[in-house]
């Protein structure tokens, strides 16, 4: 019984949250990795693109809520998602037209594009704060839990409860659907293959008659979709605050780099590696070990490796370890 309790406690505080966080990071990292693979620069504006997408979705959600449209047990935000995606696609295409294209024409060095993307980041950041404000916004509605801790305890008779939030369930399901569709697109469609070809060998892609502007346009559209979905899922799961999206940039980049920049599979794997490490290392194992340890050996301290305040240090540490021992990442992405 104690053993089961330990497993349930571990699942409740580590596995479930890390899985949904991992899925959110994976979606974010996919966007970063696509921009890197095809436009060949590290897009620092990605976190704020996610914030913009989430914000647009929240505004539409509020609109729906005020006229009484809802999605039953599911959050209304899912209904608003397509509108948020459309707005973000518009923003990214506009940014590309006005900013990135200029530098692309000049064949600017990737380092210059990174700095440019930082500028874009600050502008998007300001735009989001200007429109929705810097504070926490709540927009989740519908059923809060798929199964709550109390229901679980009553159901199983265990001392520990396992709560699964609706947002966590939606995150995982949505992430799976998005990833399947994305891989189908990249591997099976003519446009998707041309994107991979362009990422693989730009000169040869040009010789084969692949239109770079078109590839870039599709890339931004996909990136906008991924960023908005990731942003909304993160907002539903935690809450929406522009600054946290800016901070997400670090774990997202860490995920993309750990997996191998430019490799979509790597981005997904990297997202989960980072999420599980972050949650596991900052979790206080007192409770779990309390169940497992023999009588009288229960830990008296929290058994927490590092405080949650330092969770970003985990991403950093993993990033450095991977860069030291396997600089191309787990799935050997492109080299800069």
């Amino acid at each position, binding site marked *: 019984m104690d053993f089961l309790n330990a497993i349930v406690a571990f699942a409740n505080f580590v596995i479930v949250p890390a899985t949904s966080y991992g899925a959110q990071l994976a979606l974010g990292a996919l966007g970063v990795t696509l921009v890197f693979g095809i436009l060949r620069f590290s897009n620092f504006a990605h976190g704020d693109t996610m914030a913009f997408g989430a914000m647009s979705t929240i505004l539409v959600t509020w609109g729906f809520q005020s006229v009484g449209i809802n999605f039953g047990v599911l959050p209304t935000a899912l209904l608003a998602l397509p509108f948020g995606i459309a707005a973000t696609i518009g923003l990214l295409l506009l940014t590309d037209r006005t900013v990135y294209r200029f530098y692309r024409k000049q064949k600017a060095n990737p380092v210059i594009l990174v700095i440019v993307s930082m500028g874009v980041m600050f502008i998007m950041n300001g735009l989001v704060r200007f429109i929705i404000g810097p504070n926490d916004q709540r927009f989740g509605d519908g059923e809060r839990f798929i199964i709550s801790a109390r229901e679980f305890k009553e159901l199983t008779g265990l001392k520990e409860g396992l709560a699964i939030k609706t947002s966590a369930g939606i995150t995982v399901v949505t992430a799976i659907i998005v990833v399947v569709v994305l891989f189908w697109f990249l591997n099976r469609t003519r446009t998707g293959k*041309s994107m*991979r070809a362009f*990422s*693989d*060998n730009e000169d040869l*892609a040009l*010789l*084969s*008659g*692949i239109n770079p502007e078109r590839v870039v346009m599709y890339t931004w559209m996909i990136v906008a979709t991924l960023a908005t979905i990731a942003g909304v899922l993160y907002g539903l799961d935690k809450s929406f605050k522009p600054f946290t999206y800016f901070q997400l940039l670090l774990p997202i980049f860490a995920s993309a780099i750990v997996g191998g920049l430019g490799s979509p599979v790597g981005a997904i794997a990297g997202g989960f590696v980072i999420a599980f490490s972050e949650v596991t290392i900052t979790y206080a194992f007192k409770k779990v070990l309390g169940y497992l340890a023999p009588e009288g050996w229960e830990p008296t301290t929290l058994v927490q490796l590092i405080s949650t305040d330092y969770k970003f240090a985990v991403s950093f540490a993993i990033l450095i370890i991977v860069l030291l021992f396997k600089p191309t990442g787990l799935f050997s992405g492109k080299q800069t």
Partner: protein
Amino acid sequence: MSEPFLIGENMTGGYGSGPDILHDCTIAVEKGEIAVIVGPNGAGKSTAMKAVFGMLNLRGGAVRLDGEDISGLSPQDRVIKGMGFVPQTSNIFTSLTVEENLEMGAFIRRDDFSDTLAQIYDLFPILKDKRLQAAGELSGGQRQQVAVGRALMTQPKVLMLDEPTAGVSPIVMDELFDRIIEVARTGIPILMVEQNARQALDIADKGYVLVQGRNGFSGTGKELLNNPEVRKSFLGG
């Protein structure tokens, strides 16, 4: 005399605003023939080919395809006009499968290209066996076949090969030359640059020996092989 199918006439030019590499250089290929550009290292062989394909600025001369002046067209537009080009290096999409490489070759075609695909698999049977494998996992000779196959997917009117046998073993080289002859037999004129001058001139209908960006000697493959001066300077006696 009728005009050759593809001709780069009196080409003078270099890369960007750099010094001229080609001086009054003329390269041509007739329908149904194989033309080979040979010459010592640094003679401007690849440069001459790139000039024909529009990858450098010409300061003099012109390129004509089937009588039409195409000197002002970009390489991409020349592909659409019917020129197939296989670069010397990074001439395949390494992370794509063999079949995807061929599909990308046919990117500009909107019609059904499955018979062209079948023709290429007939021409290069090994590619059919490996069609679902990533092209980057193939051997050097197989990669070159993928590269040539990719260029053939547009059903080009002329095929240009930049050192197709660079870095492959002699046996593979012979096989590649056999394949190139087969391609030529289907009626596609071939213009190629080769390091292995003797073997290349052996299969060539027309040969050009470049010396420092200028036409040194030209003639049929046989003439050049028998020319004592060419033999002495380039073919090792």
